[in-house]
């Protein structure tokens, strides 16, 4: 099954989904899980909270995607959602200048609260409506670069760019986690004190082949 080597481990990442009310965060997530699972009975919460098991270059990754409420009145409660996140997906609507402004605010806040540890993705959604575009590609991409984020274009409606977005994000989070690991000196055991953050769990011995390999969230 899983390639051995150095990688007998499973990464667990938390990704928080931010963006104004009508930018299509929920459709984005629904698309993403639809593609992987055709099983409709995973969990009724799946549009708000989604877990996914991925296998990336032989390493296993558990991804937990947390949706947040976009309304202004819940804004103050953001911090308890995004604390301990490894990545953030900031979604705006390319036809809505305002929503891009909101993304900028989020970026500022996240950088202030979480520093450079968190991998940021800025996502222009609804590219199927390109004729009504109000946020230029150049502006968005240069902004993303200036804040150390990556920029993506997606369409939930046409199912474009979503898979790539999350795959890319996972790879970046793995790099960050590995760099951190190296910094810590590798040998240091997972102390109980670091309760939160990246969890790198040693695999349990692969004793029973009975379970099969169909893993779903």
């Amino acid at each position: 099954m899983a390639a051995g080597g150095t990688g007998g481990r499973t990464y667990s990442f938390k990704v928080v989904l931010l963006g104004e009310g009508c930018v299509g965060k929920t459709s984005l997530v629904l698309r993403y899980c639809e593609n992987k699972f055709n099983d409709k009975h995973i969990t009724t919460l799946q549009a708000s909270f989604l877990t996914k098991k991925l296998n990336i270059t032989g390493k296993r990754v558990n991804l937990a995607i947390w949706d947040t409420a976009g309304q202004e009145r819940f804004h103050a409660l953001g911090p308890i959602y995004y604390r301990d996140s490894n990545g953030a997906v900031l979604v705006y609507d390319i036809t809505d200048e305002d929503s891009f402004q909101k993304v900028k605010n989020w970026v500022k806040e996240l950088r202030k609260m979480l520093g450079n540890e968190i991998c940021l993705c800025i996502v222009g959604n609804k590219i199927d409506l390109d004729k009504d575009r109000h946020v230029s590609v150049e502006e968005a991409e240069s902004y993303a670069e200036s804040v150390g984020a990556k920029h993506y274009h997606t369409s939930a409606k046409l199912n474009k760019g979503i898979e790539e977005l999350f795959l890319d994000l996972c790879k970046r989070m793995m790099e960050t986690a590995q760099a951190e690991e190296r910094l810590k000196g590798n040998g240091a055991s997972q102390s109980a004190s670091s309760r939160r953050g990246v969890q790198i769990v040693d695999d349990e011995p692969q004793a029973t082949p009975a379970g099969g390999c169909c893993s779903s969230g």
Partner: protein
Amino acid sequence: MCLQSGLKEEEGRGEGGREEEEDPGLTMATADSGPKPLQNAMKMAKVAIQLDGGNKHKEAYCEYLRTINFISHALLEEVVSQKEREIVAVEVERMLRLAEQCLERAKSFIGKSADPPDLSASVSASSSCSPGQSEPHQTPALPVATAASTVPPSDIPVDAGRKATSPTKTGHRRVMSEGGGELSPFLPPEIFQRIQTVESQDTSKKELTPIEEASRLNQKLKANYEARLARLTPGQAYQKTSLTLSLQRQMMENLIIAKARQDALQRKMEERRLRLQEEANRRFAASGAMTAEEQEQRILYTNVLEYEQDHDWPKLWKANMRKNLDDMTLVSGLVSYLLSRSDHPVVKLLRKHQYRIYNRLYPIVSKGLPQSPALSLRPSRSTHNLLHAEIQRKPTRTVGSSVGGQSFSADSSPSLSHDLHANYDDEDGDEPHTQVTVDRENSFEDLEQFLTQLDWAPPHGSADDTGSDLDTTCDPLMQPEQEEGNIQELEIRALTEHLKAVVKDIHIAIDQLLSLCLLSFECLNTANSKDLCLASIEEAFFTPLWSALVALFRKVHREREQAFETSMKLYGDISPGDVGVSLKLFPQDPGALQGSYPYESAVQELRLLIIDRCPQRKLECIVRTLRLICACAEDYRCLHEVDSTPKTAAIGADDLLPILSFVALRSQCPQLVSECAALEEFIHEGYLIGEEGYCLTSMQSALAYVESLHTGGAHLPADKLT
């Protein structure tokens, strides 16, 4: 208070004179005529107790049941006949309490027939030490002991916890009604500990030491000797001397032999302990210098090894586990078996930690707990309507703080409001008086008392920090006018520090328990088994402690709870649309719900949260609540879109959070604020980024939003306030 002493008291109060009554069984038929039902019931209970004391279990059992039957019959008759209130309310309460106690006793007999050897021994042992049944102090332990031993092992903590509160509760009520004294619903730590140990006594049947054995033997010899002596005729003096001498010789010999055996045994035990200690040392051989922690662990491990020499079951389980790797039912079986062995070092350690934590909680929580609405336990529509009426009557009031207790108690007629609003009055009206705004000297005394109570906690962990923090902040040169406000602030700060220290201790305790568990059973050291093990430990650990623990959280989060309550009173009857729920996601026509309100099932589920005593279960309750919300939302959406086929109806956070806020508001349960704060501290690492973590976070956001509602932080349409 126990049944026995309670009865005495009640009897004393009853009309004297009518001591001799006919057979109590017969009085049942004539319940409504003649003597008062309460007296009759008490007489019957007394008979039952006498039978119980005389070890006539079956008869006692029947008599208890008869008493219960009589009480329910009398009360029922009273209600149905609607006569002029013959039984006063106090009496009704007393009778119900009596029935409850009889029921408890009756329940304790059930195990006896099922599991005779241990139980009858322990029961008779404990009841024989008070043959006259006259000392009131003896009896309280009895119901607890028997009740605890009749339940299946894994449930013991739950049961003990519940039982534990019931005796004091009744006592508490009585004191309140008589003197109005302040008594907390929490057991003093000594009793807490006694309950912990009582439940352990059933399993540890100690073997006799050689010396004890010898002295028993000697007693028998002596009895024989005395019997023989009595049979001798007065003339046989010579034989008497010889008998006496031989008795003395035999007794001496027995003792000497026993002494030698005892010494040998002791040597052997010491040798064994040394050997085991070495084994433990080898196991931890890594570093030369040991921290105190490591040393403690080594000792604990030695205890485990010692236990395993004396008991076979660990070996059997281990062998079984080796044969069936990764069998999760086996793992959970092992863990619950382990936790039921009260003499195993793991369980001993568990009890030690529990006691220690309880000791740190008790001095603080036992003192004047702000009683917040217990509404959530029995969702009462009448309260609801009253609240609603209140709001309608005062349309101009918009800000919370002044709407509190005073206006309620002043406006509504006392008889009506007393029961329902007493709780609010406590929180809003009385609370500040009793706690803070007494004159300055008193409040200083309060603080002093509070400080000494903090000191009283056993010096352990970071208790010292708390102390020093208090010292520095409690500046005697403080300006007088600042003092009052500061004292409250100080108290909150001290409480917060204390809470932090307790939380830390709990984490340490659980870590230690888990590692000892894994040391004892290496086979549990796989990811899945470890999780399961941890979950079981946590359940056993928290169950008896939770109510005291959450009481401390409630003290710390009092302001937040008050804010929640104010919002709740102002907006308790608001429609989902007013908190921003999308119109598609609830039925506009109230008739469609047949008398209930939208998302009622989720509200009901959420209210159950405070009943559970274990963090994991509470988290599960929150997850269920959110899932119910999603299910309801799906249903409601289908109501709107009759034509279209139900597509993916999953709702995102944009929809979820407003609904959750509505549900939280409707739950009418400010305690949720503290419960969730506590859950955040104790949520299991693995669940933090999982569904449980997400649901808890959402719940907390919703609660915070509800708290902010009444301050105008949220923008509700103004017309909804009238």
